[in-house]
């Protein structure tokens, strides 16, 4: 039994003069939910396309379920389900017909799985409605249903919650958690909605300009995230001045909404609150907090990049 469902070694892909992937060494453990994070054009989809067999590496290798060469790779790919760059649907077919086409493609015996999978993603009542008339959220669910056909052991989902309404996001999150926890399905998920990924992923990979900057577990992320005191007072300018003079630090940030993030005093909040109240400030909010995934990611890639 392989500990890793996917392992890449120096995997590279070059398009004309641009390195879309540059010597990526990535490993996804069996049973994990791997959040794949990166900006547009960072190389997320390129890596997914290589794994799915839609494109071919320029250099390097990868192993899927422990195998790295054709024709064994074909068999390994039968154990995965994918959504790549959005759901791929036949617009003039109903949801059930779309699933039937993919059931035949995957050679899955028995038609029962079609109804079962539709029910799993909440599309059992769409009946004769054509996929072209679906909302974006329904299309995403149908794409997920197609990926789930045949009970895959490894799901590769590229932006699966794009276009879903808030309830839909929660439902898909719970479904993915259930698939992971109850059925042991390993999931690779890329998403721009980092707050959502934060609620789901057990592992993260951060990719930037084709390079895998870091892989870490959710626990490691938590430990690495900078913790701070979130302070909101009636007079932020005065508060900043007091922190500098009384606490002798300039390791803080004044946010545009007047909130102050004070780093380095999480363990001694009493000392901070006392210093502020002694100077007559009214404290409106005061709590210890940790940086979220978005802040960590932004910091890791070196700030906000435009264009």
């Amino acid at each position, binding site marked *: 039994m392989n500990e890793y469902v996917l392992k890449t070694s120096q995997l590279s892909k070059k398009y004309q003069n641009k390195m879309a992937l540059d010597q990526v060494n990535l490993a996804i453990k069996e049973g994990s939910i791997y959040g794949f994070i990166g900006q547009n054009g960072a190389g997320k989809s390129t890596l997914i*396309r290589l794994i*799915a067999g839609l494109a071919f590496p320029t250099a390097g290798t990868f192993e899927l379920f422990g195998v790295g060469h054709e024709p064994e790779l074909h068999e390994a790919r039968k154990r995965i389900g994918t959504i790549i760059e959005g759901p791929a*649907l*036949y617009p003039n077919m109903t949801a059930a017909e779309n699933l*039937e086409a*993919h059931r035949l493609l995957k050679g899955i015996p028995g038609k029962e799985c079609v109804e079962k999978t539709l029910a799993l993603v909440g599309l059992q009542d769409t009946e004769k409605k054509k996929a072209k008339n679906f909302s974006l959220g329904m299309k995403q669910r149908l794409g997920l249903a*197609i990926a789930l056909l045949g009970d895959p052991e490894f799901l590769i989902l590229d932006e699966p919650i794009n276009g879903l309404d808030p309830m839909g996001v929660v439902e898909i999150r719970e479904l993915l958690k259930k698939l992971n926890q109850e059925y042991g399905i390993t999931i690779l998920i890329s998403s721009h909605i980092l707050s959502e990924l934060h609620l789901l992923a057990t592992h993260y990979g951060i990719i930037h300009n084709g390079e895998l900057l870091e892989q870490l577990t959710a626990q490691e992320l938590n430990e690495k995230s900078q913790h701070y005191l979130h302070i909101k007072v009636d007079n932020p300018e005065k508060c900043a001045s007091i922190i500098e003079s009384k606490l002798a630090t300039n390791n803080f940030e004044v946010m545009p909404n007047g909130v102050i993030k004070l780093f380095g005093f999480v363990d001694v909040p009493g000392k901070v609150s006392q210093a502020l109240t002694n100077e007559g400030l009214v404290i409106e909010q005061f709590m210890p907090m940790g940086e979220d995934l978005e802040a960590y990611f932004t910091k890791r890639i070196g700030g906000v990049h435009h264009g």
Partner: protein
Amino acid sequence: MGNLLKTEWYKLRKDRSFWVLLLILFGFAVFYPLLINPDALPTGNDFYRGHILSINTDIIRLFPAILAGFFISSEYSLGTMKSIASSGNSRIRLYFAKLTIFSIGSAIIMLVLPIFMLGASLIYFGFNLMPDWPFFLQTIGLIALYAVAFASIMAFFSTILTDSGKSIAFLILFIALGGSLLEYIGSKISFLEPLILHSIFMTQPSILLIDQVGQWSGEDVVTYIVVPIVTFIVFGILGSLLYRKKEIK
């Protein structure tokens, strides 16, 4: 391979463009004979040749180009080709499953007029219009064979172009003008002339005249039967090799 053929057959049955084309052809087959003047009808082989086969050979042979655009190229533009290619099946098998079912679809399109228009005409004008059975059966067989050969060329270019609109426009022009173009090339490059003269572009119109050929010589057999088969095999292999190396976007 069986499941791939079933998949493609299922998709062809659900393909709207396929049914629209069949409906148009069926409507034409049923209603067009009503416009023919019954007092000036040739009989037998001449009616079949002049009023049915000629339309089929000149115009209807372009129709599979529309099916190619929707049945093959649209898989790329819709993104469904990504699901197909990542399904864990070999690319060669995937290509030949698609090509096989597209060829069947093309053959069905090409056979609507010879069968249903002839049937309608017999009902309207009497059974003395029935061509000789050997001539009728030979044309049916050859029409299907040529449809399959042209289908392999269309599938090849649809795989290159990957866009429904571009594929349809290119294929219609290519199939319509290919014969003239090849004829011109043959006149300029003499060593290609025998190859061009025996290509499916040049030999397809001869289907109309099979009954005038008399007993088939060995060369006729090669020209009418072997050439379309070789064309199908060559373009099938070329297309599958192209698809095998193709990066799917």
